[in-house]
């Protein structure tokens, strides 16, 4: 039962999708011509309804953005009008139209006896294939996961904001990764966080972390990362990655780290 339902829903969505796409939209056929116009005009005199001698569009199929010409010829009417905003028209004329979508125009001609309608349809096809939708979020990941997985910390010497050789390599790779991230997330900004190990005073380390964040930022900007996408923030020693009192942990904490900007 479940399978049938999903199959049915799938089919239905296919139909809906097809209907929504302008290219192959089935156009309702024009109604049969009025019997009066098809029949030979009665020879007897007397009042008659108007006669639509011609109501046509050329070409009948256009690409979106192109135009077509409506042409009509009505006799015996006191008033003729075409819908879709055209209003009252003379009994004999033509008009250039540029419909955005497939459109059926209806001509109504009337006199004291009655009225008569005729239709003409312009089929509008879409332009060349529209751009594909952006890849689903599962393939590009979330911004947070990308920032976490694609960007490496730049490490520093004690009490220093100099970019070491290993930090240079890390930041060069980060610049490339940031470029890809900003392509996938056009509105995003990334925070460059400056951190310190536990040894300096908390107050001085706020200032030192700020220097580390801005030196990493400046390096990335030199490599072409847009400066307005990078924000700096110093955490000093308030958000350590580890808390052991040894050089391994201290080195992990002397870092420029990346997070999603606010």
């Amino acid at each position, binding site marked *: 039962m479940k399978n049938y339902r999903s199959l049915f829903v799938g089919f239905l969505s296919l139909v809906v999708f097809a209907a929504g796409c302008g290219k192959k939209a089935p156009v309702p056929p024009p109604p049969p011509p009025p019997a009066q116009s098809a029949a030979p005009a009665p020879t007897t005199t007397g009042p008659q309804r108007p006669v639509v001698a011609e109501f046509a569009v050329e070409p009948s199929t256009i690409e979106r953005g192109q135009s077509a010409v409506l042409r009509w010829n009505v006799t015996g009417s006191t008033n003729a009008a075409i819908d879709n905003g055209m209003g009252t028209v003379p009994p004999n004329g033509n008009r250039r139209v540029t419909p955005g979508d497939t459109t059926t125009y209806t001509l109504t001609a009337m006199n004291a006896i009655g009225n008569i309608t005729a239709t003409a349809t312009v089929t509008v096809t879409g332009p060349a294939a529209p751009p594909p939708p952006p890849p689903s979020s599962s393939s590009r990941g979330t911004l947070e996961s990308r920032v976490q997985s694609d960007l490496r910390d730049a490490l520093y010497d*004690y*009490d*220093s904001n100099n970019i070491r050789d290993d930090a240079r390599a890390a930041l060069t790779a980060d610049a490339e990764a940031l470029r890809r991230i900003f392509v996938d997330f056009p509105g995003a900004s990334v925070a460059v966080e400056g951190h310190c190990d*536990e*040894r*300096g*005073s*908390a*107050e*001085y380390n*706020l*200032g*030192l972390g*700020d*220097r580390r*964040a*801005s030196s990493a930022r400046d390096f990335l900007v030199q490599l072409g990362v847009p400066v307005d996408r990078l924000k*700096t*923030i*110093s*955490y000093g020693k*308030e*958000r350590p990655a580890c808390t052991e*009192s040894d050089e391994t942990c201290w080195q992990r904490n002397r870092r420029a780290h990346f997070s999603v900007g*606010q």
Partner: protein
Amino acid sequence: MLGFAVLAVAAIPAILLAQDTITTFITQTEAKPALAVTDFRGSGSQQFMAPFNSTLFSDLDGSGLFDMKAKSVFPLNNPQRPEDLRPSDNNQGFALADWSGTPVSASHLVFGYTAAQNGALVLYGYVYDTRQTNPQSAQLMAQRYVGSLDEAGAIHVAHEFANDIITKFGGAGSLLGSRVYFVSDRSGNSEIWAMDWDGNNQKQLTSWKSISIMPAVSPDGSRVAYTTFAKGTPRIMMLDTLTGRALPFYNQEASLNANASFTPDGKQIYYSSTASGIAQIYVAGLDGQGFRRISHRDAIEVEPKVNPKNPAQLMFVAGPSHQQIFQMNSDGAGVDRVTNGEGEAANPAWHPDGQHLAFSWTRGYATGNFNIFVMDVGSRQYLQLTHSEGRNENPCWGPDGRHIVFMSNRSGKSQIYTMLADGSQVKQLTAQGTNRFPAWGVK
């Protein structure tokens, strides 16, 4: 060579003299009054007297002003009222001579009692000079205090009596009513807290659920300025200590505004800002408006602290590396390093006299192992108060100029402690969570 020797010899007396100055300042070794403090009893209030007696004793002891005599050698009888005193009592305790002589050897006797009176607790407290033979001329203090008839009331009147005794004996300023503002993470995040100077009544003041650190308290105790990440990058916020309400403070457009401190008149704020690209010292109005850059150096500059007696003198901490304490004039001129370049120094804290500085320094220890030092600013002589029991940082003087509050991780996590200026009488004030950045206010 000869010239060097002569110079060195000539320099020694000056150093010794200065060393004497700082030692005297810290220990104040002149003969202290020798206090015998009797155990007070209560009439209808006896159940509150144990906390009363321990509070009275520890306040007096903690002041560092007195030589406290051990109760174990006291005579049998404790006077409770002046009427109990008599010219002689054969060492049984009702004569002043029983307290001045051996084994007690007290110069002053503190006695009295409490009573439940009209639903309140009333304390009658007396201080007598035991070296006077005539009880009338021996009376130094005869005071009456009223508190609520419960343990809190008994502790309250004990604090008041102790404070009056300390003031009577020349203790500068008072700790009574003073509060310590600090940072605790016990509620899950680093928030600003306050407590009484003895560690009681610990209360949370902020609830940003972010990182809020480095409180400074205004000279009148009415405001606390602190640094918080609540709005993203670190910025300064101000709060009213009475209501807990936020007060406006304008932060410059900068990646960092931090380390606020008040001027002695309480009308301006010094702070550190990266508005120019690197942390530099600025001064602004109490609301942050009208800011002005003070220093112009290519080095990290933090922790500006104005001399309480000379608003034109500023201490601060700066690089370019191996942070040291510097001083400069409030116009930015006259930059001069105060610590001698050894190790790393931080946290300058002015003594109320405007002549001495408590600070943290790693001198003599591994990088990061700070200890508390006190320096005589004029002579640059210093003494070390803590001796590597963990990290010891962020000293701040109490309003009495005798106590220092500081943080230490000697017991594992950082906690807040007080000690006397000679390093004695260390007391732990906090125990829950990690507690840092103490700042001592008059209220």
